[in-house]
């Protein structure tokens, strides 16, 4: 029943990113039933003695009751994991053929990750919204109200301008102080070599990189029954395209692009996951985490 609400087009009808994220994550969690380990930093590491300044919410009060000593329950990632989401808000992300635009899907994704990280994992989460410039950057933190800030930033991210990975990522490297998880959500309309070349330095600085490639089904396999004039949403250029070309040559090219990007990412030690906006988001997340689990 819940699955019905996780359809992207249904999610688009829900107002408020927090509710969307909660819906997605709850569905996602219920799909991972009986799985003891979940989350991006799900590995339990140790108990640590409380020291001044620690968040009281992390005290394991059961241990305290037994031992009368305050211990903090710590997970492996929790110790040093900060999730930073890099959301591509270029104009091409505004494309959507079936009601849900790619930018909406990407926002749901980022909101869900934020919710999962902050509410479920107690991790710090931040977001960087970019196109050819950095439009907004919220540093990853665990401070109270961070989720609301993130959701607000995501909600205000409207697609515009062109995609340029180089400039924002160079700036982002200067912001990155700690290692963590960097999630890049984009349609990656750039040469795979250039994308990997741009994001690879983050990997070198110890961060774990995830590339979520968000594409519309019409982008993956366009179906035109007549010649059509396509207008590039970023450049404004237009091109007369025949259905035959779209069905044959274009499809081959986009598949080659995806394949190349996946190969290059894998070679660089970067996680790559293709998100079709027609798929339910929780299902896509679950699949990704399952793959991640398997890889680990």
């Amino acid at each position, binding site marked *: 029943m819940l699955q019905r609400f996780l359809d992207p087009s249904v999610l688009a009808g829900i107002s408020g990113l927090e509710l969307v994220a909660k819906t997605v994550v709850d569905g996602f969690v219920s799909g991972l039933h009986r799985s003891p380990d979940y989350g991006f930093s799900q590995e339990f590491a140790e108990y640590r003695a409380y020291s001044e300044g620690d968040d009281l919410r992390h005290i394991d009060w059961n241990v305290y009751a037994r031992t009368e000593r305050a211990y903090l329950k710590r997970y492996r990632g929790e110790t040093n994991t900060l999730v930073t989401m890099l959301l591509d808000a270029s104009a*091409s*992300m*505004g*494309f959507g053929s079936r009601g849900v635009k*790619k930018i909406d899907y990407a926002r749901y994704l980022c909101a869900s990750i934020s919710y999962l990280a902050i509410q479920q994992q107690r991790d710090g989460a931040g977001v960087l919204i970019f196109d050819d410039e950095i439009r907004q950057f919220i540093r990853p933190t665990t401070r109270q109200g961070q989720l609301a800030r993130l959701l607000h930033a995501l909600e205000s991210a409207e697609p515009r301008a062109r995609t340029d990975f180089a400039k924002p990522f160079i700036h982002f490297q200067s912001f990155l102080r700690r290692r963590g998880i960097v999630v890049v959500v984009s*349609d990656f*309309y750039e040469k795979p070599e250039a994308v990997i070349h741009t994001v690879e330095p983050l990997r070198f600085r110890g961060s774990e990189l995830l590339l979520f490639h968000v594409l*519309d089904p019409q*982008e993956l396999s366009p179906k*035109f*029954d*007549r*010649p*059509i*004039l*396509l*207008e*590039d*949403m*970023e*450049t404004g*250029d*237009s*091109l*007369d*395209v*025949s*259905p*035959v*070309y779209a069905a044959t*040559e*274009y499809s081959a*090219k*986009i598949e080659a*692009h995806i394949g190349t990007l996946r190969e290059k990412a894998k070679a660089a030690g970067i996680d790559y996951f293709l998100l079709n906006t027609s798929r339910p988001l929780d299902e896509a997340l679950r699949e990704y985490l399952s793959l991640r689990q398997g890889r680990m």
Partner: protein
Amino acid sequence: MGFLAPWFLAGAVAVGLPIYVHLLRQHESPKMPFSSLMFFERHVQSSIKYRRLRYLLLFALRTALFLLLVLAFADPFVKSKAGAVGTGRKLVVVAIDNSFSMRAEDHLGRAKREAGSLLATWTPESQGLVLAFGSSVQLMTQPVTDVAALRGAVQAITQGDSRSSFAELARGLRAVAQASQLPLEIHLFSDMQKSSAPISFADWQLPANAQFVVHPATTASEPNWAVESVSAPRRVQDPKKARVQATIAGFGAPAAERRASLVVNGQVRESKTVAVPLNGRATVEFPTLEVPYGLARCEVRIDSADKLKGDDQFYFSVDRSDPRKVLLVHESRNQRASTYFRAAMEAAPEAAFQVEAFGAEQTANVKPSKYAAVVVSDVASLPPPFLEALTAYVRGGGGLMIAVGPSAALRPRVPVFDEAIGEARHMAQGGQRFLVASAVDAGHAALQRVNKFENVRFYQTVRIDPGSARVLARLDDLTPLLLEKKIGEGRVLVFASTFDNISNDFPLHAAFVPFVEQSASYLAGQGARPPAYPVDSYFELRTAKEQGIAVEALDPDGARALSLAEAATASSLQLNRQGYYSIRAASGRQELAAVNADRRESDLEVLPAETTALWQNTGQGPLTAVQGGEAAPFRLWWYVILGAILVAAVETWIGSRYLEGKAGAS
């Protein structure tokens, strides 16, 4: 192949519409925003090819539809031998002028010979028609291809005495063109008299698509002298008092002396020489007209020595008889009216009446039928037998004049006339000394030559209710002065005053004599017949009362002018020949009608060449007829329309399929 309405081909420019829509107008593919064109290339050939394959078919269909519609409106035709019989040829019209002027120098004979020469070059396939014209058009044949029939028709044309009228010819030709629906080739054989031309150029209009060829009988105007008119009395009682006045005219002729003769029954009575000025007229007068009793054939003849002999004499007829009696009934005590009336009648220049006067009480045994007319002058009462006889006389066709004065005003109604008599008025009693005539019908036969009637002073008048009578004259207070009523076959004139120089001073005026004479002539039925008639005028053969009685008419050649059926039924006879018609009318009276040609025919001035050319041009250019032997047009518009409907259906089907695809795509 040709087009009956080629100007519609201009509509072919409408083909520009599909050309614009399909080729010139930038084709608008549906525009769709797409995330990136990174993986698309300018590989447009395939898409344009794909699109044009579909559009070119629609374009071709739409262009064909427009062209077929334009073609249908242009009414295409092909020449088909199958439809050529009798329909595709021109109609050759041979028009020959047989008017009076064609008598000059045998112009008609020459015209007929030239027409024969034209027919010698006749092609067997051509259709032809022969007509003769004067004042009217006479079709000698129906449209035929038989040249022998056409030659016969030409030879059958006889000389007429009518006046030629080109307007009538043009009207006849228009009727022929309308009836035959064929282009005409008109050959006119005429002396092309200028006087035959109508005043309005619109009357010359030839039928459309007519070729007009003129074969003039003469090219130069000829001088001509003619007896233009004759003034002579119709009835003569005293030959010594009868005068004949003739006008001799020269048309395009130099000044010359002509000898004019008065001929009676073929005998020259008197001759005179008259000097006719250049292009002018001269008058010759014969003071006496010695004619025997009865009808006399008279003419004034000149020795003109010109080419048109027919107008050298002017025919007129004269009837010599003893004066007819007019009965005047008056009050015995008042002889004044009788005196003045009798004196006026005897003073008339052409005195045709003799007055017999009776006192009213003496008329008991008088028979009005013995008199040409009866005048009752202010009588208070009449013996009943006479009144009864008088009423019967009027109803039988007699004429009666009643003067209503103070005596007659004692009666409530006018006898025979049967209208109420009002008051008798004396002008002096009303402060007004006299009345005068104001509204006078000068066109009436009894008043035609009554000049200065308005100078007559009326001191006493009687108001008569006009009732159904016609008022011929009124006084200035609008009192009826002279009234007329037709009773039975007769006529009654009522004069609302007297002839006695008491109630008025009418007898002392010059108007009195012509009034008395003309009134008597009018009531006696004289004056209706003129001494001469123009050609084409009508002679009245019988009155309404005389239906069924046979009449007899002989034309100038002595042949019967009427068939037996016409003799029994015709009410009039058209006098279409110059000369004397001898007619026995239904009344039994023998009449002699002298007929003369219209003297406008005597003017032989030829129509200017420029005017002839203008007339020819009214036929709207050269002949465009399908020549004989060639095919008649077979119209194709129906087939073209069928093709257009078929193309429209296919276009609709393909167009709807295209629209369905478009709707599905959107």
